[in-house]
């Protein structure tokens, strides 16, 4: 094992000495050629800061445009951005390359490697190793890179000796900023060490290839932050809203009487279940195409729970075809415990909630089939819906079912409104579970939502009035959220 590691390192050093020569030649500032060309004026005053509110490994650069960009000779075509890296970085990059070659050999995806390339020669060496040997070499090389990366900050101190300028990117003329977003992955060749001295340079380049360099920026260090100040407005909103919710929930617990205005779609649910019982036909509940990670689907689970309980009491049949396997498992739990609550655990059947397929229109085809063959008395669509909303709702109408829908997908609301008997628009979907349960605690949170809306209206009105005056812009800017 040690022998192999040694072997690999020797090989790498060999290769690195080879490619260093290449790197140097690639980096030439062909001054011989440049002399004959008309040099543009260099970009000025290159400055940079650690990118604010990020995970580190990034520097924001800015410079003044070259006088020949957009004026003067107007010859500047683009800016080339360079950064200085120590030799250790170049060496580590080679090790990273060989890791990726080994990775390719392990995964048998070496087809893309060009014959005669550096990767090809590495491939020839590594291919003779067995699988477990490959893993060993890979892991020790990874370990080597990991350690090497820790030494980068130290190596950077040797500037300007023992390193080279590396081309980063090019930007079209007229641009005067560049964000150098380095990788935080130590395995990636774009890795930029935090808390290490970094140096940058920007060249103005003309169409003929003449280059003029700016001042060298550095040393400058990047680091990650522990708080994103851009998101302060969101902190306030979330905190305030949480306090409102908790306050009204507590108030409701103490027994305050909370009025809620009736919603047509909600009241229809009870009638619809009664109707299904009378007709002796099942109820179809569609949870939509959302995964259990969508809050609309989670809201739909709680509605399903209430519906299932009533269904169990009335002894009607319930059909819940699902699109996502996790949604299926959660829905099974929900329905099962609803039957338990209703005191009829024996009436619960495993295939009440079943999986169909995870493909949008195949799922629709299957649900359409259920509607036309089982002829449910009521279809309830709650959750996330996309283009299929109208197909479902129209087929349901064709089968003569009463249809109640609710979604937070704005683009689909019109179709539900047109094709269904009752539709919960956007927010009403989230309110529905509180309405159906009539538990005071849940109604409390509705009250909080109302107060939040009132606050938004008040703030918007104040904001729009202040926005008309110059002194008001500061107030308005308080609300800006930058990504």
């Amino acid at each position, binding site marked *: 094992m040690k022998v192999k590691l040694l072997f690999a390192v020797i090989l790498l050093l060999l290769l690195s000495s080879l490619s260093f020569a290449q790197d140097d030649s690639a980096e030439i500032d062909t001054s011989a050629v440049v002399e004959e060309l008309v040099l543009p004026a260099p970009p000025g005053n290159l400055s940079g800061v650690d990118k604010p509110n990020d995970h580190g490994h990034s520097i924001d650069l800015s410079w003044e445009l070259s006088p020949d960009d957009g004026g003067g000779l107007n010859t500047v075509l683009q800016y080339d951005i360079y950064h200085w890296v120590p030799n250790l970085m170049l060496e580590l990059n080679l090790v990273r390359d060989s890791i990726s070659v080994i990775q390719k050999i392990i995964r048998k995806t070496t087809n893309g490697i060009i014959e005669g390339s550096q990767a090809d020669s590495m491939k020839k060496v590594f291919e003779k190793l067995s699988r477990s040997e490959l893993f060993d070499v890979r892991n020790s090389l990874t370990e080597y890179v990991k350690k090497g990366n820790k030494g980068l900050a130290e190596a950077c101190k040797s500037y300007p000796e023992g390193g080279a300028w590396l081309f980063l990117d090019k930007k079209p003329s007229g641009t005067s900023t560049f964000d150098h977003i380095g990788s935080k992955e130590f395995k990636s060749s774009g890795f930029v060490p935090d808390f290490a001295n970094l140096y940058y340079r920007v060249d103005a380049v003309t169409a003929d290839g003449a280059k003029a360099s700016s001042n060298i920026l550095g040393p400058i260090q990047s680091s990650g932050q522990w708080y994103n100040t851009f998101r302060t407005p969101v902190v306030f909103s979330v905190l305030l809203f949480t306090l409102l919710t908790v306050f009204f929930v507590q108030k409701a617990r103490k027994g305050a009487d909370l009025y809620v205005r009736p919603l047509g779609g909600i009241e229809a649910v009870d009638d619809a279940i009664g109707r299904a019982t009378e007709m002796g036909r099942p109820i179809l509940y569609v949870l939509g195409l959302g995964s259990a990670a969508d809050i609309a689907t989670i809201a739909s689970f709680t509605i399903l729970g209430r519906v299932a309980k009533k269904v169990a009491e009335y002894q009607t049949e319930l059909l819940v075809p699902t699109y996502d396997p996790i949604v299926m498992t959660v829905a099974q739990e929900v329905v099962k415990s609803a039957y338990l609550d209703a005191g009829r655990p024996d009436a619960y059947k495993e295939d009440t909630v079943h999986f169909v397929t995870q493909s949008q229109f*195949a799922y629709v085809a299957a649900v359409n089939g259920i509607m036309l063959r089982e002829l449910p008395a009521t279809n309830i669509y709650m959750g996330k819906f996309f283009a299929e909303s109208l197909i479902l709702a129209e087929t349901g109408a064709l089968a003569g079912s009463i249809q109640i829908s609710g979604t937070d997908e704005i683009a689909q609301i019109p179709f539900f409104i047109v094709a269904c008997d009752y539709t919960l628009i956007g927010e009403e979907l989230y309110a529905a579970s509180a309405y159906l349960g009539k538990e005071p605690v849940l109604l409390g949170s509705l009250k909080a939502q109302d107060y939040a809306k009132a606050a938004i209206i008040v703030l918007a009105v104040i904001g729009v009035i202040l926005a008309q005056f110059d002194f008001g812009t500061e107030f308005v800017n308080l609300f800006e959220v930058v990504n």
Partner: protein
Amino acid sequence: MEFSDFLWMTCGIFLTLATFSFLYKDNPFYKFAEHLVVGVSAGFTIIVLWHGTLVPNLFQKLEDGNWFMLWLNSSEWWYVVPAVLGLLMWTRFSKKYSWVSRWPMGLYIGISTGIAIPLEMSNRVNKQLYAMMVEIDWANFFGGNILSTTSGFAQLLIFLGTIAGLVYFFFSKEHKGVFGGVATFGIWILMIGFGASFGYTVMARVSLFINRMQDTKAWGVEAFNASDVANPHYSSMYPIVFYLLVAFVVGYIIKEIMDHLKRKNA
């Protein structure tokens, strides 16, 4: 195009027609297409998720470990954790231990709701609130045209419409008096918006059908492109297959009409 490819294409056309037959009524061909696509798409999902996610995101992370060590000796051994959580989901196969599956479910729901709170607050509330605070273009209030979408009037209308829409969504206040009036204006704005976006979508939906017609036409062209030098495989089998399918479809339609008339007479 080789004959086998043409047969596949014919199969696609047959399934297209079978699916369209749903518009008339539920029938054996639609049932066939429906059940087929459910199975095939489920199989397709398995394969795509296996090769696309399970292999790179789990198996390859643990590939240098050994099974007798439970992969704990692999270099990224912590990927054993999600695998174990995934396996806990499988306790649902048993009646007795199915409650264990609630742990990964709790984790899953916790993560997704936790992500949603600040993100949705920022994207849907804070950013929209900021967007509402515009400086209204008073100098260009009617913009020379009452239907201009950038004039001050339009900006003001958007602002008032949004406020009214918000008022409509109040749950704890009855829609009465001035409040009720604003809410009514709100629902009007909502309905106008819904109508417009319904009408706007019609064109895109009809395009989908045009696209199906084009595919069918391409098949018809393929069946008769004997003169096309591009197809050295051409044989008389191509039009025969074409006519067979056409005859079959026509035959089925005639049968349906006859059945219908019979029922009507009876």
